[in-house]
């Protein structure tokens, strides 16, 4: 007991030293850093669109599973997709996947620089073919399914 008190007293009397260490300049970044500016928010929303891309694949897999299970399972899934909750989710997902498409297509000019007779082609001329392909392929897929 006495030894412990003595040790405590000694510890209190000795000044503690902090070794010299240059402090790093590392400003604290809030977890909500992306809420402050529109560009940051757009960036995070664009990245989050991947969640809705995955959700769309989950819906596709559910349709395939129902197709495999038979007509009753398929009809049940179609019925469930009519519920307000499912419709809310598919509506939100649809806006996000379209947002993904637009932001993805608009990235092409940044990734690909095309020069024609020594002049750089304007961005919209590089992005435009993506939109044309998008429309044609979408129409083709819809035609195959609805035919």
């Amino acid at each position, binding site marked *: 007991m006495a030894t412990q008190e003595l040790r405590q007293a000694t510890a209190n009397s000795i000044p503690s030293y902090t070794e010299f260490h240059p402090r790093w300049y590392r400003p604290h*970044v809030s977890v909500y850093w992306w809420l402050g500016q529109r560009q940051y928010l757009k960036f995070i929303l664009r990245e989050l669109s991947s969640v809705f891309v995955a959700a769309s694949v989950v819906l*596709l897999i559910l349709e395939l599973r129902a197709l495999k299970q038979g007509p009753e399972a398929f009809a049940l899934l179609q019925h469930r997709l009519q519920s307000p909750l499912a419709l809310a989710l598919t509506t939100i997902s649809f806006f996000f996947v379209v947002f993904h498409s637009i932001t993805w297509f608009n990235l092409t000019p940044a990734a690909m620089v095309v020069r024609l007779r020594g002049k750089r082609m304007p961005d919209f001329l590089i992005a435009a073919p993506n939109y044309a392909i998008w429309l044609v392929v979408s129409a083709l897929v819809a035609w195959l399914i609805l035919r």
Partner: protein
Amino acid sequence: MAKQSNEAFFWTLFSAGGVVAAILIPVHLLLFGLAFPLGWVQAPSYGHLLSLAKLPLVRLYLFVLCALPLFHWAHRFRYTLYDGLQVKHLNEVIFTLCYGGAIAGTVYAGYLLWNLA
């Protein structure tokens, strides 16, 4: 010698998945998630969809349509968690969950498409 990074491989999957998702996902979601349930257009019959999905080329198409966008999600969502929530210390867990999810979805889609009667 420096350890070879796998980043390029995962990035290629991310990029390919991004293209597939951008061009093909909206029309599928619009039809099956909104247009059919809301009755905007006459929904195709079970028989028509099944016979369509059984075509070898369509099976391959559907497999790619499931697999690549899942790997696109895995890569992008992983970095969203790193940057957005600043959870770099959970690196391994997030990596495993994201790519594990993508692999599981891909395998399940492959199983379903392979066994479509």
